[in-house]
């Protein structure tokens, strides 16, 4: 075999290049997820659910059983599936619009019930697929198609602190973190833990991922990095918010090191 790209085994090569735009953070997030799947060896007992929003472009992304659902409804589909077949490892993958706006009741309800699923939510500060409207995560002053003069927090609120909310409403056995595609190693640890926590039957596992959307941010590569590495973290604190004891015990002093 000739030299081949270093794609995770669980990626479906026939559908690559994938359908995301140039520079899209979804690609990195899904590489990290793919690596975690490989590492945990769960490709053949996984279900990947993607939402409407750019996440739907991943409907044939993995060599993993995949269901592309409705806008905001991936959480309930995956909850229904997981409860029917608890032996499967079930991931609900969605955008900030799907998770924090139209699907907020599903997210908070699944979190409060401590459903044993893994929710991965892509925070790109707006509705990407529909062309860049305001999202609950849009930053104060940020211009979008529906906040053309900049988001006014007095009228439309401050950016959603999703993981913070989820951490408040879940029990101790839940795992909650916020990662960023600009720190893939740290993100890898978070995604892995979010899967392990589900596999162990412990509880609801949630990772918000700060991700790039050069298309709707209308940024070149330089400003794309600047926005995700400098601007976004001033509103969204990256790190683990809730880590079940089991991890802390197992990891020992590793926590700090893995924070690559």
């Amino acid at each position, binding site marked *: 075999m000739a030299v*081949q790209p270093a794609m995770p085994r669980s990626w479906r090569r026939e559908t690559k*290049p994938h359908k995301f*735009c*140039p*520079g*899209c953070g979804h690609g990195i997030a899904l590489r990290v997820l793919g690596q975690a799947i490989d590492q945990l060896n769960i490709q053949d007992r996984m279900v990947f659910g993607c939402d409407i929003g750019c996440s739907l472009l991943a409907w044939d992304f993995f060599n993993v059983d995949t269901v592309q659902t409705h806008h905001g409804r991936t959480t309930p589909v995956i909850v229904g599936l997981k409860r029917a077949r608890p032996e499967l490892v079930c991931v609900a993958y969605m955008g900030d619009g799907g998770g924090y706006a139209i699907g907020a009741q599903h997210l908070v309800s699944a979190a409060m019930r401590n459903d044993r699923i893994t929710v991965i939510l892509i925070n790109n500060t707006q509705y990407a697929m529909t062309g860049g409207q305001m999202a609950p995560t849009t930053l104060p002053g940020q211009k979008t198609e529906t906040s053309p003069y900049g988001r006014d927090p007095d009228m439309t609120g401050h950016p959603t602190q999703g993981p913070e909310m989820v951490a408040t409403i879940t029990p101790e056995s839940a795992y909650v973190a916020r990662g960023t595609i600009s720190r893939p190693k740290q993100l890898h640890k978070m995604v892995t833990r979010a899967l392990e926590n589900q596999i162990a039957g412990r509880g609801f596992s949630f990772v918000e991922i700060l991700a790039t959307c050069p298309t709707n941010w209308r940024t070149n590569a330089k400003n794309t990095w600047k926005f995700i590495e400098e601007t976004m973290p001033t509103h969204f604190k990256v790190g683990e918010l809730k880590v079940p004891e089991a991890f802390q015990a197992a990891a020992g002093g590793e926590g700090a090191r893995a924070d690559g």
Partner: protein
Amino acid sequence: MADFEYQQKELKRGTFTLFPGLCKGCGLCIEKCPKKCLGWSETLGVYGMPAIEPINKEDCISCGVCSTVCPDCAILVERYGKEEKKKKEEH
């Protein structure tokens, strides 16, 4: 499943491989290379935009950052093993 076409360069510390059929020309790698050794290539990527290539080849330290930030797995960086390193150095 067809293999991806590739362009391979042997650099100081390792091999640098680009798969133009995967590169969308986003430029994220160019910006992130700590050694600023990547630039636009004559080859067109998948969306008809220029792909990238190592231009300051000497500077590349095969750190792999470029491949880690590529959303499309278009870059493969392989460091030479001890054997290969030695061979290189002998030349």
